[in-house]
């Protein structure tokens, strides 16, 4: 057979060598399934509780049920259909991005039923990696990323295992931590490249396509308010925003964060007025100090922004209505940062035009007759003095009302019931009833929702605004003074504040108090994360280069820079990877290093040459000899091959140290 012939016969057949699908052993399969499970877990944490538990149970049942043999085709189909039905039953039929994520989790839960060969396992791992990715569409906190990292490590471990199986060299004896270290090393070696890409790869200033909304909204300030519905939010301790002040910090009792302003009332629900946009409020003039601050707003999926009362200007990408409430052009689906300026203003809309005035006096006819009667009574008593009526209402509240989170169900005339029957409730009832009372008395008034108060985090020096700080207060329009903030809830006499959040926390055995420092540190980590990672966008990328004197760095130059840094990272990776395995024995390491120094003189030790023989050869070859090397060689041999390590005089550890130092110090 000629050479050419052999070549011709070898090659076409080559392409036809297809691997038969080999069945994975139980241990490898378990590795793959655990990795996939770790991928789904963070996603499940972001889904509605019942659905998440359902999917988790299904995934476990399928994994265990298919341990021995694949599930029948119809079983898989039925399972997939059942889980799909469960997803839509929970999320409703409007397809949001959380629906998509839930579907992904459901499909991944069914996949183990058909995962037996190498190829199946690899496709499962690949699709499973979408799960942490999907998690980040729902939540971008550092803990999600931590979970995601664990999942990535497990997936890489499983991939390594599959590769071992493919090359028929599985070593079960290797301790698991060694494998984890191996994968960690791989990730670390790729890190320079990854970070270069992260900081330097050109970012999109505007998205190519929009983020689909969620089917199930997040808790938060809505665009309407039905008194008595806030209890969930008031019990939600998670942060709504974080604020860092530059320079002056307002006193805590002045921290009113202004959210949506409600003017429309139908007897039950307050909502924003659509008509507001047509009317342009006159400019305001700041009086007194202003506060500079940066507000990091947690995602709400709504367009409402909050700002310290009163915002003086609207930040870029936000617009201010005539009620000085800020709206954003896109729903806030990620942590966003806003640089703002607020302060006291002299007169807010002092000349209220008639249409606006009448809107702010509007009441649904036929509701709350007792309140309306009382208001007319007060108006008669006070004459034209609006301020007196406001004061009288506040005094009444101080005298007779109590604050509690436990409220009774409101009937048709909710305000009447609150003012004359219950006489207790929380901010929603107070503000809503107060505004109705004012309007009935002929004073323009409106409800403002937002957050009141914040907690300072001593670590990192910033303030946390929690969802439980949600608050509603009132604004009344007084002649010459314009809109004035009145907080009827704050008027409640302190001794009549009963069931508050603090009380409920205390009932839980002061758990929160004990863990406060831990919580502070945890939140500080989150804040730093928001600052450092989440907030990084095209704008910040440009800002990063400003100190370097690169004012307007274009995409091309950015790409060039990225390429350069990436090449550097790549070179570092290659260098680190191609290094030999490090000798573990320090003595041998030092001895080899010494040998390399001699190798430069052409006196390298041959692989077969004993230490002593080499030292003698060098001694003979060099003019003037090399007595020091002879001595070192002798000591090295005695230490390594002799009976009693050390010289006998010094303890072995000390003697080894001395020998190592001498070896390191010796120069040919």
């Amino acid at each position, binding site marked *: 057979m000629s050479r050419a012939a052999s070549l011709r*016969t*070898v090659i076409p057949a080559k392409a036809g060598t297809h691997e038969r699908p080999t069945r994975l052993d139980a241990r490898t399969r378990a590795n793959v399934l655990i990795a996939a499970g770790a991928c789904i877990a963070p996603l499940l944490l972001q889904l509605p509780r019942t659905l998440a538990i359902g999917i988790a149970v299904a995934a476990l049942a399928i994994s265990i049920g298919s341990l021995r043999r694949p599930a029948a085709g119809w079983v898989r189909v039925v399972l997939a259909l059942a889980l799909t039905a469960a997803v839509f039953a929970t999320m409703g039929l409007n397809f949001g991005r959380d629906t998509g994520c839930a579907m992904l989790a459901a499909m991944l839960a069914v996949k183990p039923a058909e995962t037996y060969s190498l190829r199946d396992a690899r496709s499962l791992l690949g699709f499973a990696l979408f799960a942490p990715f999907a998690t*980040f569409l729902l939540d971008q906190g550092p803990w999600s990323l931590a979970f995601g990292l664990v999942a990535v490590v497990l997936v890489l471990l499983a991939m390594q295992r599959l590769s*071992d199986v493919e090359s028929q060299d599985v070593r079960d004896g290797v301790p698991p931590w060694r494998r984890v270290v191996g994968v960690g090393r791989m990730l670390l070696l790729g890190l320079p490249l990854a970070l270069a890409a992260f900081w330097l790869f050109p970012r999109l200033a505007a998205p190519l396509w929009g983020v689909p909304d969620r089917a199930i909204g997040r808790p938060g300030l809505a665009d309407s308010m039905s008194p008595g519905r806030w209890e969930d939010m008031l019990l939600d301790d998670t942060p709504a925003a974080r604020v860092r002040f530059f320079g002056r910090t307002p006193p805590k009792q002045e921290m009113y964060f202004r959210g949506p302003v409600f003017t429309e009332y139908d007897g039950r629900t307050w909502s924003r007025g659509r008509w507001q946009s047509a009317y342009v409020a006159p400019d305001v003039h700041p009086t007194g100090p202003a506060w500079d601050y940066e507000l990091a707003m947690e995602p709400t999926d709504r367009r409402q922004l909050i700002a310290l009362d009163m915002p003086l200007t609207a930040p870029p990408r936000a617009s201010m209505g005539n009620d000085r409430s800020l709206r954003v052009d896109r729903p806030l689906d990620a942590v966003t940062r806003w640089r703002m300026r607020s302060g006291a203003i002299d007169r807010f809309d002092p000349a209220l035009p008639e249409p606006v005035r009448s809107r702010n006096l509007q009441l649904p006819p036929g509701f709350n007759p007792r309140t309306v009667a009382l208001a007319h009574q007060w108006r008669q008593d006070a004459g034209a003095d609006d301020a007196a009526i406001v004061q009288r209402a506040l005094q009444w509240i101080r005298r007779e009302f109590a604050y509690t989170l436990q409220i009774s169900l409101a009937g048709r005339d909710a305000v009447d019931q609150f003012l004359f029957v219950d006489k207790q409730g929380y901010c929603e009832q107070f503000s809503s009833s107060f505004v109705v009372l004012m309007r009935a008395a002929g004073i323009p008034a409106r409800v403002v929702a937002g957050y009141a108060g914040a907690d300072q985090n001593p670590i990192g020096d910033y303030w946390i605004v929690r969802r439980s700080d949600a608050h509603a207060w009132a604004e009344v329009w007084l002649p010459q003074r314009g809109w004035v903030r009145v907080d009827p809830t704050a008027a409640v006499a302190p001794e009549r504040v009963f069931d508050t959040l603090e009380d409920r926390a205390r009932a839980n055995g002061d758990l929160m108090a004990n863990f406060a420092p831990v919580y502070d540190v945890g939140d500080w980590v989150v804040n730093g994360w928001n600052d450092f990672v989440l907030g990084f966008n095209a704008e910040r990328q440009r800002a990063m280069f400003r100190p370097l004197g690169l004012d307007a760095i274009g995409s091309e130059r950015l790409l060039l820079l990225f390429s350069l840094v990436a090449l550097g990272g790549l070179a570092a990776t290659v260098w680190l990877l191609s290094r030999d*395995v490090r000798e573990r024995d320090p003595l041998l390491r030092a001895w080899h290093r010494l040998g390399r120094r001699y190798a430069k003189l052409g006196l390298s030790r041959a692989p077969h040459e004993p230490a002593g023989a080499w030292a003698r050869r060098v001694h003979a070859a060099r003019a003037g000899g090399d007595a020091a090397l002879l001595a070192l060689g002798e000591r090295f041999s005695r230490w390594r091959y002799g009976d009693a390590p050390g010289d006998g005089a010094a303890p072995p550890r000390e003697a080894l140290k001395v020998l190592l130092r001498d070896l390191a110090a010796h120069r040919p």
Partner: protein
Amino acid sequence: MRDRLHALRARLERFARPREPEAFPVELHRRRIYVLPTRFGLFFGVLLAAMGVGALNYNNNPALLLMLLLAGAAQTSLLGAHLQLSGLRFVAVSADPVPAGTPIQLRLHARAGTRGRARRGLRVDCAEGVAMLTLEEGVGDAELALPTHRRGWLDVPRLRVSTTRPLGLVRAWSWIWPEQPLLVYPAPEADGPPLPDGAGEAAAARLHPLGDDVHHLRAYRRGDSPRTIAWKPTARLGNLLVREYERPQSADIELDWLQLHGLDPEARIRRLARWVDEAERDARRYRLRVPGHPPIGPAHGPAHRHACLRALALLPGSRA
């Protein structure tokens, strides 16, 4: 379409180094190591690209970070696969000759620096077979079974040494093409006439426990049968002696090409090969005469057998 792809692939592979057989030892270096993503690697790449576009679009930094970490690990695995092969040295190939028709075990001896990286699970393959090569302490052998069809020299095909470690995302491979051919003996005839009788005069005697003639006496050794003890000389000399027998060995066997007239050459070769094996099994001396070759023997033993079979294997044939 598929055929055309294969043809294209074949053409590309012909450009790969080495383009002709080479003398060993051979060291794999970066100019002859090729790296391409596997099918899984392509899938993984598409997945990462989708993640990257999504993350950039939503300015979702954790997702981007995740994707970049995975990409970094994939990149490292690419280099890792390359480095598994780089610096690997193939020092020799060897194989024990086998009769045509039975697979020959090709042994590849590989070395790498003892202090170097762990090189495990390297796949050595060609169209006909697959073997795994794992180096322990810098030394490793791979045994590849190649089918044989004809006697004579077997050219070793170009062998691919490849690895998909550590993650299975990329395959690094290199070709080695040993120049040294392997010897394949002729296949012995399945059945045929028995060995011809010895023709020569020179009869030899050989010690044999079942022989008839007493050859000599020797001192008793443990394990000798009591029946072989020569009691009379033992009584005379005072220590145990045993008899040893011999059996007359037939004359040397002549295995002559020319005497097998009437058969076609290949059949003659196969019959002679069988006779060589039979004579060797019966521990008989034999001489082989083939055209164009001085007579081999008479002798016996593995070396003689090899010389005879080699001569038979390398006879010019009708198809060679």
